[in-house]
């Protein structure tokens, strides 16, 4: 179980300078160069799970950021090592469940890629493909993106992402097809393959067809209103990871992307009840 985020997790430590790093790699993903390393070879296999879609091992330098897992053994619990994860020198999590620590590291690594990517603009959003266009659902964590994406997949859409929409310079949407993170009743996110929803994964960049700005509210009725192009740009910009780092690129890319697209906003209730209505609406020709 990961240590909850506390003041202590933000401490830096000089101990990292004395650690040896027998396992590690550098990868490139959409122009971001990220290093990952561990103090023990035993976790190298687990570390590879942090690689995002489209990543490739690289010798490029300099790196934009690096991540580490230190494996500590103590006498009291010799068979249960403690795994401590760092972003650069900042401790971001710790625990004796290596999978849980790697999951924390994975989220941080993907966020670093989203921030440092040079060839794509990363917008925090769920994405499905439908009839040659992308349906993008921007929103923060806990707004119900993944459950709506899953419902749209069950209704026949193609899977693109439940974490980030990737926009290229022409405004087309690319896939970021890691497993969906579906929360159980206790709120714990579990990776689920899109195949389990009967969906295929798209690999062709799509023009933006529809933006759905929504969040889950119990028993809410879906009565969306149309958003203008300007409102749509702001809705996407509000979820753009590099909004402060690359604002000009972001505004330009999103302005191109929304041209010809439509957008709806409104609260929703049960995702399964509105998925087919959304797809029906998205079956109408683009603007």
């Amino acid at each position, binding site marked *: 179980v990961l240590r909850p985020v506390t003041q202590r997790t933000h401490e830096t430590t000089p101990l990292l300078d004395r650690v040896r790093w027998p396992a590690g790699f550098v990868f490139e993903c959409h122009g971001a160069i990220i290093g990952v390393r561990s103090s023990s070879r035993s976790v190298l296999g687990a570390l590879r799970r942090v690689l995002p879609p489209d990543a490739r091992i690289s010798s490029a330098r300099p790196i934009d950021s690096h991540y580490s897992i230190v494996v500590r053994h103590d006498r009291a619990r010799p068979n249960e090592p403690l795994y401590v994860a760092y972003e650069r020198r900042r401790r971001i999590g710790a625990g004796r469940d290596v999978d849980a620590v790697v999951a924390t590291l994975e989220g941080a690594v993907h966020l670093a890629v989203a921030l440092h990517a040079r060839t794509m603009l990363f917008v925090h959003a769920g994405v499905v493909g439908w009839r040659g266009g992308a349906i993008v659902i921007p929103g*923060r964590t806990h707004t119900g993106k993944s459950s709506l994406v899953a419902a749209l997949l069950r209704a026949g859409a193609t899977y693109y992402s439940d974490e980030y929409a990737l926009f290229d310079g022409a405004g087309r949407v690319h896939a970021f097809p890691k497993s969906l993170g579906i929360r159980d009743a206790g709120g714990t996110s579990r990776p689920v393959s899109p195949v389990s929803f009967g969906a295929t994964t798209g690999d062709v960049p799509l023009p933006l067809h529809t933006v759905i700005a929504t969040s889950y509210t119990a028993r809410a009725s879906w009565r969306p209103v149309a958003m203008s192009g*300007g409102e749509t740009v702001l809705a996407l910009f509000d979820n753009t990871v590099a909004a402060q780092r690359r604002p000009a690129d972001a505004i*330009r890319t999103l302005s191109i992307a929304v041209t010809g697209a439509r957008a709806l906003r409104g609260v929703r209730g049960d995702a399964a009840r509105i998925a087919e209505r959304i797809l029906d609406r998205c079956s109408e020709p683009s603007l």
Partner: protein
Amino acid sequence: MLHPDASAPKSRQVGLVIEQVGDETIVYDHKTKQAHSLNRTASIVWRNCDGHHSISQLADIVRADTGVDADVSIVHYALDRLSSAQLLEDDASEKADGVTRRDVLRRMAAAGVATIAIPAVLSIAAPTPAMAASGSGGQNNQGQNKNTQGQNQNP
């Protein structure tokens, strides 16, 4: 109210990223780290705030470009919204003599003008990376930042 010809407001241009989306204008302000969406009427007023056009001339331009029977109160209201968003060189909001949205609505309703012509400036703060990828930060129920400027949307 200020005499219609007593002022020639000027829009800020330095430190801004400006994009057109249809007849709306998207502006990112490097100084305030805010993004703004100006609707058609606000865009027309802002684009023509060149320090030479008087307020009554701006009203003429709005009338010509939109076909709406606009008077100076619409321009004053637009200047108030633009000033709140820090998109004007001078603080025009004081000069606007407190024209409220209700004032503009009442005058436009009396003139039979559609409310969609009311100037609107929607503003959000650029999110930090952590905000954009998490549940932190003030959000409305559509997962957006709460606007920090005088947002005014059509009813």
